[in-house]
């Protein structure tokens, strides 16, 4: 699916206009290309990983219009007119954002293959507003698998990120829909 090779198999392409990490993009894509492959192979955004292509492992989770989406279950053509946010958008001014920093401080990753999935799931969770309990966090992130950490530190990192973000705790209306390109609802910066 490396569309740039001159001898690539010709498939009927579909023009799609979307916004990825704040950048408007118009691109012609094969109809059977899923979003994870589109992000990785067409845009070079390899932070989104592919683990099962069955919607079960959560490695490929990205945020589409403010909600967590398993990007292996969505075709690239379905992105037309929508906003996509990937892990590459999180760092601010070349610094980890507070959520990423909480993951680092709490040792919430080991091999790191699943980390983008958890980061984007948590980012979308914040868009729902409120401050979830530890048990709610466990349930909310259960759609992403991790085989290294045993999850405890991931839950702690997300819990801490929520706790340390005062405006999120009081801003129940935050949806993220108006600011799809950056975690403006993610509270204080470091």
């Amino acid at each position, binding site marked *: *699916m490396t569309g740039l090779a001159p*001898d690539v198999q010709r498939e009927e392409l579909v023009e799609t206009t979307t916004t990825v990490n704040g950048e408007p993009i118009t691109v012609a894509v094969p109809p059977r290309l899923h979003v994870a492959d589109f992000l990785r192979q067409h845009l070079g955004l*390899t932070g989104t990983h592919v683990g*099962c*292509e069955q919607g079960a492992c959560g490695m490929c989770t990205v945020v589409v219009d403010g909600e967590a989406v398993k990007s292996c279950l969505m075709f690239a053509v379905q992105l037309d007119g929508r906003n996509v946010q990937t892990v590459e958008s999180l760092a601010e001014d070349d610094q980890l954002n507070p959520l990423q920093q909480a993951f680092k401080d709490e040792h919430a990753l080991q091999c790191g*293959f699943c980390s983008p999935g958890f980061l984007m799931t948590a980012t979308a969770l914040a868009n729902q507003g409120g401050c979830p309990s530890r048990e709610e966090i466990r349930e909310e992130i259960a759609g992403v698998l991790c085989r290294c950490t045993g999850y405890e530190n991931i839950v702690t990192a997300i819990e801490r990120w929520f706790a340390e973000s005062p405006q999120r705790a009081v801003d129940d209306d935050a949806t993220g829909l108006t600011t799809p390109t950056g975690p403006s609802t993610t509270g204080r910066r470091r």
Partner: protein
Amino acid sequence: MTTLERPSVADDTGPAPRPGGIGASVPRKEDDRLLRGDGRFTDDVEPARVLHMAVARCPYPHARIVRVDATAARALDGVKHVLTGPDVRAATEPLTVLRPVPGAPQLPYYALAQDVATHEGQPVVSVVATSRHVAEDALELLDIEYEPLPHVVDVLAALEPGAPVLHPSVLDSNLMAANSDGSGDPEARMREAALVVEDQFRINRVTALPMETRAVVAEWRPGARELTVHASTQVPHLIRKQLAASLRLQESDVRAVASDVGGGFGLKLGVFPEDVLACLHAMALRRPVKWVEDRAEHFRASTHARESVHDFRIAADADGRIMAMTDVYATDMGGWNSPFGSAQLSSVVMNGPYRVEHGYAERRVTLTNKTPIGAYRGYGQPEVNFAYELLMDRLARRLDLDPVELRAMNMVKAADLPWKNPTGAVYDSGDYEKCLRMAAEAIGWDAHRAAGRTPRADGRLMGIGFSSFVERTGYASARFLARRGSQFGAHESVTLRANRSGGLDLYTGVSTMGQSSETAFAQVISDVFGIDYDAVRVHAGDTGASPLNTGAFASRTMIAAAGALKAASEELAEKTLRLAAWRLESDAALLEITGSVVRRRDDETVQVSLAEVFTSAITGQGIPPGEEPGMESTSHFEPSDAAYSFGTAAALVSVDPGTGEFTVERFVLVHDAGTVVNQKIVDGQVRGALAQGFGAALTEELRYDPDTGQLVNGSMVDYFVPTAADLPPIELLHTSVPSPVTTFGLRGVGEAGTIPPGAAVANGICDALADFGVELNTLPITAESIWRALSRRAVQDDHEGTLAPTPGDLPDGGTGY
């Protein structure tokens, strides 16, 4: 203090750790890139003009390949190359095995099936095309005629006379080899014993399931004779050797690179067929070829683990003192011998932490028509722990003894270590009873035992179960490995090189797969050398830029690498001090390295930067007469013996005696990893391994249909690894007894957590249901299995005549593990 005189062992009473040094909890080197999506996993490597491979796989458990017609596939637009069995046979040697089964013949196994395939998922044809989509379209156009052959998937059935034989050209039966070890006269002790407890324990087939599947990108430059292979592997230097052997290349022709690896857990140890195939295609096409395993392939064509049937016996006197232990077990190998084969440690630690003078272990390595068995975190230790720890509790119940006191009485005492167990393992040091007592206290054992078995308000009964264990970490020695035909050493090697920015670059063949070796290695260097932790950069996993090492497995990386890191750091520190003394016109003995400078200990204003000293060494300008230029050291280190970690887990469970439903309410693990380099990382390793242990104990099981020989639950939606919502509350406690056999007193830590969950939970359930006479012997533990045990509780277990014979009745059990 000079760097050379630093006390090497940190413990609870020692000085506070140096910032960034051994014992400090520092930010991980690996984290920033991984959190920002800037990791470089194999699928992230995308050379220009890369082609993509897809593999046609045998859909049957056992089949003769009658005919392969790839004409239509070859004709598909975009298809560049097709390989079939004869092509591979002509161009390659069979795949090699890194950790052979002693006494077993080599199975002729090529990257594509030759005539007969022995498991579902075995590669039969490979296709390379301009995209994975096109390559998979081409697979649909292949015309492959199979003749299904009789198959066998049950490990005991495979050993029966008349079972279909998988490899008749080299074996008369499916028994690849039997390996036995032991000492004393366990048979005589069994006859004398007041009591023998015994059972047949069935251990489930599971898989490591790293979140990143296997992956390979191969590039060949014929003019340069250079094959560059990016692979998701734990052992770049070992796959370099294996690829060269299979591809008929010199090792110098191959460069293997593993940058970020998305989890390994033993599964990614060595070369798989697809690695060889991608290389063959790349060499034929002179274009890069990529293959990323999809998850359906992963479930059928990587490796599985653990499946075994243990016939275990413990003989004891009337006071509960163990007189003998025996374990005769059949361990599944699957359809062929994967690079690390079947687990060997059930024999090595067959007696766990208990003093047993008369013991015998026999491993019967058995071929079945299933996905091959490979290494998986624990490598035989969780399996055997389940058997001996369940029997320890049964022994306590039969003798009406406190299971904690029974364990304490039988444990090897701290003062008796080092001690050699019946199968030859030398336990180095430790205080096993202390961990047991701490676990009993933390879980509230005394109060539970005093309270008796009254149901909770919801009708559930409470039980507490223990599991005590030892874990072998590292290898006894290269000599130990040589006796078993292993194709690697027990050492690690590092190259430490200064740079002109004042930092140190560390080059290692240990790939980064989540074990935090970049961080821990830098901590050791910082500690020994005295340089800032942030000024150490670790370059990992490239055989073209690292000394030839062993690799990341067997909980051995740190205990072996620490010695090499220390030696290299000391050598460079000495030279740095000599060069600085020359520049400062001082005596080297008066200087110390701290942070980014070398300075006089008695006058900190007299100092020179490391950047300046390193630059002088690298340029050879301004160094003392007689000094060689350069600031680089390659060091190797082999520990004097394996180090044995140890611990005790305690599980508090509640069980509904009507339905068998149960909940693990609390889980305590007391664990000793010797001297700890980074507590946060150690805890992370332990928690992660516990999660895998809980999965294997409670929810994970790969099931094969005996009639069709098909894997029936080979997908992420059908195979249940724990999610964040599934794990019980876990409490970690530690002791810290330095090991005498490793640098700094370290013990390995990667695998311990996989060992005790199954036994601790099962023992808790049996404790809760003791009044019902429930005994468990099968993993995974499910509500159904408990309900069935409740249903048959009136039936007295009697294994007379059904277990494997006792050792005295056995023929020669073959060579040792």
